[in-house]
């Protein structure tokens, strides 16, 4: 099943059996707390196409991380239905169709970089694991070729997060879920990581659902930006980002970018 593909050549790497299609149908989530129930998400409906880069943006506590975790099968929804490549989220976990990158790298400190990346192959008896490429190649793709034998504590925060991205990509998931992956980085590193991620995504074309607070991040990365309203989280608006690809730093000073940023700011304030 595995089909190693040269990763760094800028080629598109289709996994032959991936439809990469994500359907979220009227998903609701209500948390029960001691003081009563809190409605976190109300009737979220959304479709993501294969190889599409979609961003969820919204104020803190609008339920965007919760929605991401529901799609990834980490939280049960109160109502509604989710399909990832025609499977339920839990089935998708078992067939390793979901790759997660969190706000913190969450690497295993006792493992070297390469052993962290290979962890998914050891779990669940390696079932459903196509290999995107060799560990060497994925490390080259995230720019850490010479750090295979290093331990996480020897790397900077940005480098650790790139290891986490490599760990989520290596088993060729149909869907990559990223929960504010650059939220814990300093502003300089963070701005650089945006384009780093775009370059990686350009190589390993994946369907990506990305959660962020940052308006420039959302615009630079996305095909579509989904704006959520504060609690209860509702999808307020879906904005197409038609900026041409490939994008680089210059895109942030184009009139189109400024117009989109204004619009998003307005929507988030309202």
């Amino acid at each position, binding site marked *: 099943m595995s089909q190693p593909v040269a990763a760094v050549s800028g080629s598109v790497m289709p996994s032959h059996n991936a439809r990469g299609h994500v359907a979220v149908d009227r998903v609701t989530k209500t948390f029960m707390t001691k003081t009563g129930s809190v409605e976190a998400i109300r009737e979220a409906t959304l479709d993501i196409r294969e190889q599409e880069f979609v961003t969820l943006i919204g104020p803190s506590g609008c339920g965007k991380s919760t929605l991401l975790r529901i799609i990834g099968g980490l939280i049960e929804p109160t109502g509604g239905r989710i399909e990832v490549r025609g499977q339920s989220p839990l089935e998708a976990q078992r067939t390793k169709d979901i790759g997660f990158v969190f706000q*913190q790298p969450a690497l295993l400190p006792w493992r070297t970089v390469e052993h962290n990346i290979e962890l998914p192959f050891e779990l669940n008896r390696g079932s459903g694991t196509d290999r995107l490429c060799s560990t060497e190649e994925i490390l080259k793709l995230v720019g850490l070729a010479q750090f295979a034998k290093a331990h996480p504590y020897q790397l900077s925060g940005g480098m650790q997060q790139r290891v986490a991205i490599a760990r989520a990509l290596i088993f060729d998931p149909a869907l990559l879920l990223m929960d504010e992956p650059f939220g814990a980085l300093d502003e300089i590193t963070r701005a650089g990581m945006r384009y780093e991620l775009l370059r990686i995504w350009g190589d390993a074309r994946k369907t990506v659902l990305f959660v962020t607070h940052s308006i420039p991040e959302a615009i630079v990365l996305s095909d579509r930006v989904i704006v959520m309203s504060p609690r209860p989280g509702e999808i307020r608006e879906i904005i197409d980002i038609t900026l041409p690809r490939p994008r680089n730093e210059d895109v942030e000073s184009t009139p189109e970018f400024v117009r989109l940023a204004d619009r998003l700011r307005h929507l988030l304030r309202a």
Partner: protein
Amino acid sequence: MTTAAATRPLASPTTAGSVLSRMRGLGPALFGMAVFLGLWEAYIRLTNTPAFVVPAPSRIAVRLWEELPSYAYEFSYTLAAAAIGLVIGTTVGIVGAVLMANWRTLEKSLFPLAVILKLVPFVAIAPLLRIWLGYELQPKIVLASLITFFPVLVNCITGLRSADPLALEFFQSVGASRWEILTRLRWMTTLPYLYAALKVNVNLALAGAIVGELFSSKNGIGKVINDTALTLDIPAMFAAIVFLAITGVAITLFMNWSERRVLYWHESMRTVGTR
């Protein structure tokens, strides 16, 4: 490509430099020790204190040298009892922790029992163990395991529950089973906690074995101390105590060394290592 990423040097845990600097760190301790022993020696000689009251350090040293082979032989019994007891206590503690960390009901019903067992001063049950188990190794082993299981149990329960929540979510997101999460994530997170318990336990296990020997024994360093007390051979008694102090230091150094080897990846190792 490489963003503003400072990489720390890939230094091995023990380099020649760090050994040297650690030796230099010992200087003041050795000096303090020498002054203490010197004053002790001087006092004994000046006041002509008889050896059966307090022997001079030189006298103890000579006696220790003479008795070293027999002490080493007797100590092997003590060490065996302590080691076997430690292994049993640690195993019971780990297994208990895994069970209790997974099943709250089990924790609620068994943990109070463990606490009560722990609260009984272990010296108090030594005579009972002699009646039940006799004069060989068994009562010392039981004593050592009774003392050592509780720190392991408590620390391992904490360790098993302190896995990084995001790492847990990652394991879950790729369909890891409960067993895989236990062996590949929780167990490794527990290791530093387990080690902390072990470092306390090696000395507790020895103490347990020696107490057992004081009450009843054919062999062991505890029996040696008991015999010297009966014959009022105070220099030999001091020599045995010094022997125990030296082995205690050796065991502690070994534990610290092996901890650095096993837990080199843990943050606690780096805050200590920068001294």
